[in-house]
């Protein structure tokens, strides 16, 4: 569990790295793209402004040109006789409805004649804006006025542009004026839109506004145009942060067309829209990359985690581990099957090792049995012979019986586990023989829980302990020794307890006995007993020695309750 918490899992790292890289790349791309897009938009805004302005300039130019053509026709007509002149002019007026009036003036500037379709000039004209004698005198040839209101008719005040031309002397009239309606130009200019709010206006070379679509706001001071600085600029297109100006002169005239458009709406709004679009796209791409990397890491990560978990389980309990292969990509499957092979191999090796260990102990036991028995046998036989010589035939007989029982049980037809009753019989036979040999220098007793008798135990478990108690505890004693063998149940376990009242041992001696290698001493070592228990039943079982000098030693043997020969010969 602890290992899992250490460090981030692959999934998170993979997702973070992929998404991070994609996000950085996207940011760079968006910035680059928007930058380029903005400059392109500015360029196109300038172009469209310039185009609008040049269109207006062309239109105004052709309007003025048309006016000059009309003027030349009027001049021609003025040279005719009065009758044909009137006829010509009235048909001219019918064809040119945009001509509001044609007026002729005497040398002194008085209105002589007026031709207009269906209108007559008022009797007393307050001020005639179509003709200015001072300017007419000063001018060499034809000239044109700024737009003004036609002021010579009653109830009719259209805006017009007037062209005045001097006539050849002798015809009666000295000047002729042509008033051309300005509404076509003004409505044209009004309708020119550059973007949503951009517009065009007309001004003259000095910067005086000739016509502005919002001139009522201008004159009310609610809006202003910086015409003086615009007048200083040459024709062309100029852009600052918020506004694009474009200027173009009208051909052959002193009027100029100014176009104004707003960077904000032509450029910034588009850039903003594009930014939104890019962000949306970036979000889609990020989501896609997130999803992809997440899927990918799951494809890899989950089987890997499964594998890791399997390894962990294997590590904690190799014996009972059953491996289930993990699915996933080919690499993972290969890894999984390798691990599967390894698990099988390790489990084989482990069982081989255990078998070998068991075999080793068995062989050892058998070897030791083979080794000690003769020695013990000689002594016992000597004792029996001596008993016979003494004529104690009854003792000799029971001795021989005990010896026979000892060997029978020792061999037990090769079984490792024998019923506890048999083991007790074995231990008692041994004690009986040793008691004869030690000439009753010790006594012994068995305290056995009868319920334990049916359980099984390893053979020759008690004998080495008793042998140790006699040789190390009682042999050196002066007083009579006593050995108690107790067998009882302890929960699911069986406890064997061999207690003596001998000289006892210190801790070093205890450790030495447990570390004893076979062959150091004649007899099956205590250690061999411990090893066999542990091999058979696991680490929780085996021997435990408590000893106190001059008090005695107690050896406790713990083993599970085993019925029958379940564990035998595994």
């Amino acid at each position: 569990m602890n290992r899992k918490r250490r460090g981030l899992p692959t999934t998170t790292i993979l997702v973070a790295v992929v998404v991070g890289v994609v996000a950085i790349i996207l940011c760079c791309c968006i910035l680059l793209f928007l930058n380029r897009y903005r400059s392109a938009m500015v360029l196109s805004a300038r172009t469209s402004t310039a185009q609008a302005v040049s269109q207006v300039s062309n239109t105004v130019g052709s309007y003025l040109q048309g006016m000059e053509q009309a003027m030349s026709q009027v001049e021609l007509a003025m040279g005719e006789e009065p009758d044909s002149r009137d006829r010509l002019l009235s048909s001219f007026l019918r064809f040119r409805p945009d001509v509001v009036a044609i007026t002729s003036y005497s040398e002194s500037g008085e209105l002589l004649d007026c031709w207009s379709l269906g209108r007559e000039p008022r009797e007393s004209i307050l001020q005639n804006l179509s003709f200015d004698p001072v300017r007419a005198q000063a001018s060499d040839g034809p000239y044109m006025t700024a737009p003004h209101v036609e002021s010579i008719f009653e109830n009719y005040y259209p805006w017009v542009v007037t062209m005045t031309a001097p006539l050849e002397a002798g015809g009666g009239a000295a000047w002729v004026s042509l008033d051309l309606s300005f509404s076509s130009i003004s409505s044209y200019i009004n309708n020119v839109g550059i973007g949503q709010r951009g517009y065009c206006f007309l001004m003259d070379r000095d910067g005086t506004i000739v016509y502005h679509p919002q001139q009522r706001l201008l004159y009310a001071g609610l809006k202003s145009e910086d015409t003086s600085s615009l007048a200083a600029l040459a024709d062309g297109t100029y852009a600052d942060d918020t506004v694009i100006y474009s200027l173009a002169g009208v051909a052959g005239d002193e009027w100029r067309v100014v176009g104004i458009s707003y960077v904000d709406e032509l450029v910034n709004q588009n850039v903003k829209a594009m930014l939104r679009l890019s962000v949306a796209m970036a979000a889609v791409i990020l989501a896609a990359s997130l999803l992809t990397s997440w899927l990918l890491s799951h494809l890899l990560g989950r089987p890997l985690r499964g594998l890791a978990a399997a390894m962990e389980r294997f590590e904690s309990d190799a014996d009972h581990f059953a491996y289930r292969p993990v699915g996933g990509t080919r690499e993972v499957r290969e890894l999984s099957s390798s691990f599967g092979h390894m698990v099988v191999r390790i489990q084989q090796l482990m069982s081989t090792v255990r078998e070998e260990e068991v075999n080793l102990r068995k062989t050892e036991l058998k070897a030791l049995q083979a080794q000690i028995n003769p020695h013990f046998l000689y002594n016992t036989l000597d004792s029996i012979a001596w008993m016979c010589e003494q004529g104690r035939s009854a003792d000799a007989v029971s001795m021989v019986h005990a010896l026979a029982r000892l060997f029978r049980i020792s061999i037990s037809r090769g079984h490792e586990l024998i019923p506890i009753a048999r083991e007790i019989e074995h231990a008692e036979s041994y004690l009986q023989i040793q008691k004869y040999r030690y000439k009753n220098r010790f006594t012994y007793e068995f305290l056995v829980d009868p319920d334990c008798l049916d359980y099984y135990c390893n053979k020759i478990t008690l004998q080495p302990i008793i042998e140790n108690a006699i040789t190390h505890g009682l042999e050196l004693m002066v007083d009579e020794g006593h050995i108690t063998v107790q067998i009882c149940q302890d929960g699911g376990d069986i406890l064997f307890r061999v207690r003596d009242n001998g000289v006892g041992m210190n801790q070093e001696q205890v450790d030495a006995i447990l570390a004893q290698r076979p062959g150091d001493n004649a007899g099956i070592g205590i250690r061999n007993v411990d090893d066999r228990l542990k091999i058979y039943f696991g680490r929780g079982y085996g021997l435990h020695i408590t000893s106190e000098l001059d008090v005695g030693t107690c050896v406790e043997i713990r083993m599970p309750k085993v019925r029958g020969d379940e564990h035998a010969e595994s």
Partner: protein
Amino acid sequence: MRRADWTAVLLAAVLLCLSACGGESQPAARHSVTLVAKSTQTEFWLSVFAGAEAAAAEYNLDLTTIGPATEEDYEAQNRMIQQAVEGGTEALVFSAIDFTRNAPAIDAAAQSGVHIVSIDSGVDSSQVSTYIGTDNYAAGRMAAQAALEQVEGPLRVGLVNYDEGTANGQERERGVLDALSECGRATVAGEVTTLVDAAQAQADTAWLLSQNPDINLLLAFNEPTSVGAAQAVEALGLEDEVFLVGFDSNVATIEGLQSGSVDALIVQNPYAMGYLGVESAYRLLAGQGEGLEPMVDTSTQIVSRSNLFTLDSQKALFAFEQSSH
């Protein structure tokens, strides 16, 4: 498993964000603005509409202009306001016929979240975001001043006003009366309250003049009353005896200026009222309402016979869009 959940939540969030972005990138719907005028006939109001339409085109607004048949019908205005609100308008540009009796309708409209811009003539409501129009009191003083400069001697004054509930007419009259009483040589001979209709105004003015033949200064307070007064003066042949000051420009009063029946005109800037009114409505709708002044004075100008054809007067008096005739 928790990580998977977390990732799913994140994904969902991203997708939500996406849909939000997608929704936002669609072009915003056009705001709808309704201009409720006092009339749809007079040149003054046509000029207001021209300005309003120019602003609507510039700011891409869906503009509706409506007005009652007569300039006394405040109830029709109230109905129009209600209908406009029901029709889903987002802002009202409004000129009140009646200062007080139009107020409940305006309050109700503001209650339902409609922005209110007042032009030309105010309304008694605290819901008005801004007033755009003439400073009517100052315009009234200006009218009196124009007369005082031109006419010498004691003044016997006749007033031709319209609906007593209308704010702008009353404000102008107050300005006139204040200026006249300050000069000390003027007395009000008579006043007539007429309908905003030239024929009725002419009859009422004629009656006023006949009742008070000593009147030598006549003031009329809006376009139709000025036209009616001018026609009455002309019909009675009193061009030289009576100094007439009118409001707003009309072909008839301009003729009167030239023929002598009208002596001065106080010309407002209806185009600016329409334009700025709609522009203010746009700014309120676009959430830029903080910068709005509570009152914007569109300029006024005195036009008399002497400056009738100066370039400024031409631009003030004569619409380029003139398409009649």
